[in-house]
């Protein structure tokens, strides 16, 4: 860096974006915190201060707990499965094959498609009788009349399956970028030392991919905690709250019951949970991240 002094013009350049973030991110955060401390009904004039009651009530509410649990289950299944799937596909498309670019583009398409439209199609895929999966099961000589989205045992798993399909493209591209930045000399050296494909994957690819993996893990988790459109269109949280996730729960609390105070408290609880989970992820991967940072030197 050249010997520049603090230049006031810098503030001018960052001012519009900073003001935008202040007004449309940080101010709403503050307002939400304020709302969360009040018993605030959207259509009533009185908004009595209730301290942390909204938080306590949410934590004791069995329905909120169910939604919280479902969110955790969704994240804990869809994120690792989605990452493993995406890494496998990234390895597949990281080959010099004719037409490989077409496949890479193709796998990205679900991620840029209308969430409402694909939710409608997946309703059909999971339908009893005429749905695609039941049709395939019947072809295979199985029962083939399961109402996947209407069965408490399968509904959340169905949404996990769909999320793998939607999330493949972006995750795959990130892993691919990670794979392609591993210096080929490392593989060559390992091959000379007699390391087989699995050993090269285990001892070179995976360690070198740690920063990439961490990035995908954190962003995927943030996304998983905010699952909404699919639930709204496909199951409305049902059957019997089997797919009621926190963001959908908050949506109903705020816009069906008009309890925006408790909805705000619940959204803060979601935020807090997300921060804790991210921190745990960082803790768990800190050692590997440090080793990788040294290996990249």
């Amino acid at each position, binding site marked *: 860096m050249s010997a520049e002094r603090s*230049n006031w013009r810098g503030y001018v350049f960052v001012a519009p974006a900073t003001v935008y973030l202040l007004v449309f991110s940080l101010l709403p955060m503050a307002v939400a915190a304020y709302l969360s401390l009040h018993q605030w009904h959207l259509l009533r004039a009185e908004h009595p201060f209730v301290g942390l009651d909204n938080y306590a009530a949410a934590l004791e509410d069995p329905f909120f707990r169910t939604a919280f649990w479902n969110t955790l289950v969704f994240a804990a299944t869809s994120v690792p499965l989605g990452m493993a799937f995406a890494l496998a596909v990234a390895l597949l498309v990281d080959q010099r094959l004719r037409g490989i670019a077409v*496949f890479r583009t193709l796998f*990205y398409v679900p991620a*840029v498609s209308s969430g409402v439209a694909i939710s409608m199609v997946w309703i059909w895929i999971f339908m009893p009788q005429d749905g695609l999966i039941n049709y395939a099961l019947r072809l295979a000589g199985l029962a083939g009349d399961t109402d996947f989205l209407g069965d408490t045992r399968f509904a959340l798993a169905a949404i996990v399956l769909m999320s793998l399909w939607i999330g493949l493209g972006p995750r795959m591209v990130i892993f691919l970028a990670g794979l392609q930045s591993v210096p080929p000399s490392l593989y060559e050296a390992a091959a000379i030392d007699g390391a087989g494909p699995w050993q090269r994957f285990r001892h070179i690819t995976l360690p070198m991919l740690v*920063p990439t993996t961490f990035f995908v893990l954190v962003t995927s988790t943030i996304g998983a905690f905010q699952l909404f459109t699919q639930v709204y269109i496909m199951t409305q949280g049902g059957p019997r709250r089997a797919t009621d996730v926190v963001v959908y729960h908050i949506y109903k609390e705020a816009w069906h019951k008009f309890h925006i105070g408790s909805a705000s408290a619940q959204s803060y609880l979601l935020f807090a949970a997300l921060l804790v989970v991210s921190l745990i992820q960082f803790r768990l991967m800190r050692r590997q991240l440090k080793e990788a940072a040294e290996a990249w030197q």
Partner: protein
Amino acid sequence: MAMKRLRVLGSYVLLMALAVTTLAPFVWMLFTSFHPPLSPIPTPDRLFAPREWAFGNYPYVLSFPELPVARFFLNSLVVTAAVVFVQLGICSLAAYGFARMTFRGRDTLFTVFLLTMMIPAVVMIVPLFLVVDKLGWLNTFPGLILPYPYLSTAFGTFLLRQFFLSLPRSLDEAARLDGASDLQIYWHVILPSAKPALATLAAFAFIWTWTEFYWPMLATSTVDMRTLEVGLSVFKDAYGATNWPLQMTAAVIVMAPALLFFLALQRYFVKGIVMTGVKG
């Protein structure tokens, strides 16, 4: 050699299986839209052989009086164009400030930018709704466009800053020796060199805004202000819940513009992800 052939063959088999899995829902969507309205839901054996080819579904849906698709399309276009334009402007200015200028508190402010990416949008929705309501902007274009809570300004700033940092400083120095101000360097030197990065941000902003559902659903209350994505969720029930052919016709109409846009700009999506630098 035979081993290698086998591996290539196996790879193609897997790739084709994945491609079919990826495409099947879209193929079903497209062909269902050619079935006559109210015909039974097409299973794979019936999908490619409708009772008759009902191409009339498209004009029918496009001119359905209660659901003005042309109007939805216009709304989506106005909102998306405005959001992309605003994001490109404010993010590139901020990115220049963060990448090229020195000022007190710069790195702290940049960290705050990055941290806002962690905030789940749901936290901000209720307050934004109250603010937009107070301003009398519910069901208006400003209300739809300005508070776009999902479209992360922080992400855009981060993306562009990373790119600006990779541009050689000698470019600015030469312009500065010629007496150019920071604003001139930003406009005449950095922006023209950063076209790929700007296209990347535009591509992401376009797709995120075009497919956004939660905010436009809340912020609009009359049919004439709906975006395509929200309009489609209304379609779901408008023709009767089981009228799959018409629903899928609407779905194809909603998806087509975004898909064409993606295919035209797809290399920028890949570039952008690489650019944000997963190695930190």
